[in-house]
């Protein structure tokens, strides 16, 4: 056990699994880097340095740099998964899904079903998401609702370093295709993380705070904000349960419904665009299955229905803030049925 960053946690998970299972290979643009170049080899390790050091240890045979051809290499990862390997492919930013989505949602996600259960596709796609780095419209999106919408895909949103390591090891050992969303503003966050390998099961929410006045469901980086809000409200004697579902598909509906049964009040915080997103997914779940327990309207805290803007003032206004979340919790507490 020692303090590790989210970046290190992801990196360790990859290293553990590559040591443990020869079928695990990784691929992506510059996951090693320097290929064919005159200078340093393993020069990049991906844009965040997450995969640096893997090529020297495991060789170019298992750490595969790729041309900028996402359809071909994400599809290759799907094809390799269906034929015996356990690839971890890096889609550098989830914003690039548009050039390769077919291989993810029509191929990898559907093999098992279309082929009558006679295929396994143990594929992991690691990808960066989220706003906050002034990377603007095409490098800042939180497109996990789209992947959650697709039957056959599992979708993971690690909210901290500890979560990242355990969930990624689980993802690699899982026999279904998994899309693993790393928030680009979390890579430097640190916490205690075991040195050894461990798994966190999918579909089991984590209650990061417990309280009986209101339930906050949040995803990825928004869990951090929700925790801050819960801590601040605690000072005022308001107890919040913060639920980090960890995986949006499968979803731990029970944890959410049980908590709402107790608190009767729900705020959902989602960094994704507001239409057909996880906030609506959770709000709808509760409106259907915990309606009787609700003491106030559900509140959804999301960005506006716009692309992510560039200028810092704009982006800061775009991202759901702890202040907005706190205001919403106070709102549901004040509201009466």
């Amino acid at each position: 056990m020692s303090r590790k960053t989210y970046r290190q946690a992801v990196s360790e998970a990859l290293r553990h699994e590559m040591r443990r299972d020869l079928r695990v290979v990784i691929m992506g643009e510059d996951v090693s880097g320097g290929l064919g170049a005159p200078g340093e080899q393993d020069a990049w390790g991906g844009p965040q340095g997450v995969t640096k050091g893997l090529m020297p240890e495991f060789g170019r045979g298992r750490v595969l740099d790729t041309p900028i051809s996402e359809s071909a290499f994400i599809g290759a990862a799907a094809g390799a998964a269906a034929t015996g390997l356990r690839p971890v492919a890096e889609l550098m930013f989830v914003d690039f899904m548009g050039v390769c989505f077919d291989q993810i949602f029509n191929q990898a996600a559907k093999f098992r079903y279309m082929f009558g259960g006679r295929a396994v596709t143990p594929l992991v796609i690691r990808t960066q998401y989220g706003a906050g780095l002034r990377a603007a419209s095409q490098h800042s999106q939180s497109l996990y609702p789209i992947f959650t919408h697709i039957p056959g895909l599992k979708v993971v949103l690690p909210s901290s370093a500890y979560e990242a390591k355990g969930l990624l090891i689980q993802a690699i050992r899982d026999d279904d295709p998994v899309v693993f969303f790393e928030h680009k503003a979390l890579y430097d966050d640190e916490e205690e993380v075991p040195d050894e390998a461990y798994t966190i099961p999918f579909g089991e929410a984590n209650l990061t705070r417990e309280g009986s006045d209101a339930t906050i469901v949040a995803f990825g980086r928004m869990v951090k904000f929700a925790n801050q809000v819960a801590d601040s409200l605690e000072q005022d004697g308001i107890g919040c349960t913060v639920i980090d579902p960890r995986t949006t598909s499968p979803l731990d509906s029970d944890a959410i419904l049980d908590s709402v049964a107790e608190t009767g009040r729900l705020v959902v915080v989602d960094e994704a665009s507001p239409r057909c997103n996880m906030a609506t997914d959770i709000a709808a779940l509760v409106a259907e299955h915990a309606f009787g327990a609700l003491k106030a309207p559900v509140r959804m805290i999301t960005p506006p229905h716009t692309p992510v803007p560039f200028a810092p003032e704009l982006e800061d206004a775009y991202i759901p803030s702890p202040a907005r979340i706190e205001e919403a919790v106070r709102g549901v507490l004040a509201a009466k049925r």
Partner: protein
Amino acid sequence: MQLSRDQLLRAYRDMATIRAFEERVHVEFAAGVLPGFVHLYAGEEASAVGVCMNLGDGDVIASTHRGHGHCIAKGCDVKAMMKELYGSVEGLCRGKGGSMHIADLSRGMLGANGIVGGGPPLICGAALSAKVMKTGGVAVAFVGDGGSNQGTTLESFNLARVWELPAVFVIEDNGYAESTASSWAVGGDQLKRAEGFGLPARRVDGHDFFDVHDAAGEAITRARSGGGPSLLHVVLDRYYSHFEGDAGTYRGPGEVDRLRAEKDCLKRFRKRVIESALLGKDQVDTIDREVAALIETSVREARTAAKPSAADVLTDVYLSY
């Protein structure tokens, strides 16, 4: 490549099976008993069989929307295929896939594909599996002339080259993508395109089994022995229209009749093996009879095979949840 008598018999049987399967599916579809979107491979048999005769169970192919021929050539169970088309739970994909997604991974058949250009990236992956796990396996993607314009296909050419994969791309150029002529839709030239990406490439007459078999053998041997990817441009014809239901009016007058009369890979094969006494006429006739019986039984069994129940909708999405 010199073929043994057994190999010749197998080649003829496989081609004849595909032909008979497709002719019968055409009839069944017209009778309104077959559901779904169906694309027939009749006329193109020498391509699937010429290529797949060079492959074993450890090798993998990816097919197209026009997948029945590749399935049969790769050794999939014909009865289970027919049951799949009939939507039976006893089908190759338990009735969930249908014609456009028919597959059998245990035979290295990675699926027909409803997405034009869907297969080539997958085949890069199958080739990667073979390379990493050192199985000696080879992976083959079948692609139509139309599919040769899909970015996924073109990217795969390059990926296979830079990763030095044991992969072969087989462009089955039947002159049309739906109703659009490949002479219009394909800019440049298939062989030059391949060479542009550094892939060795050969053009072959897809009506001639021996031609296809030979060129495919060369490409597959190259791949298997570490020589990397290559491409085959197979020029052939489809007898039926794009899908069952297409009137095919874009064809020239008498085009199909002429194709059937003059460009029939089965007739050509028969003629050649019989004239050169490689096989006896009776041997070939016997196969025809056996194939006819097999297809008849397949249809009979498929008609009464068990249908899935509503509860089956929910299975097979995930291995674990």
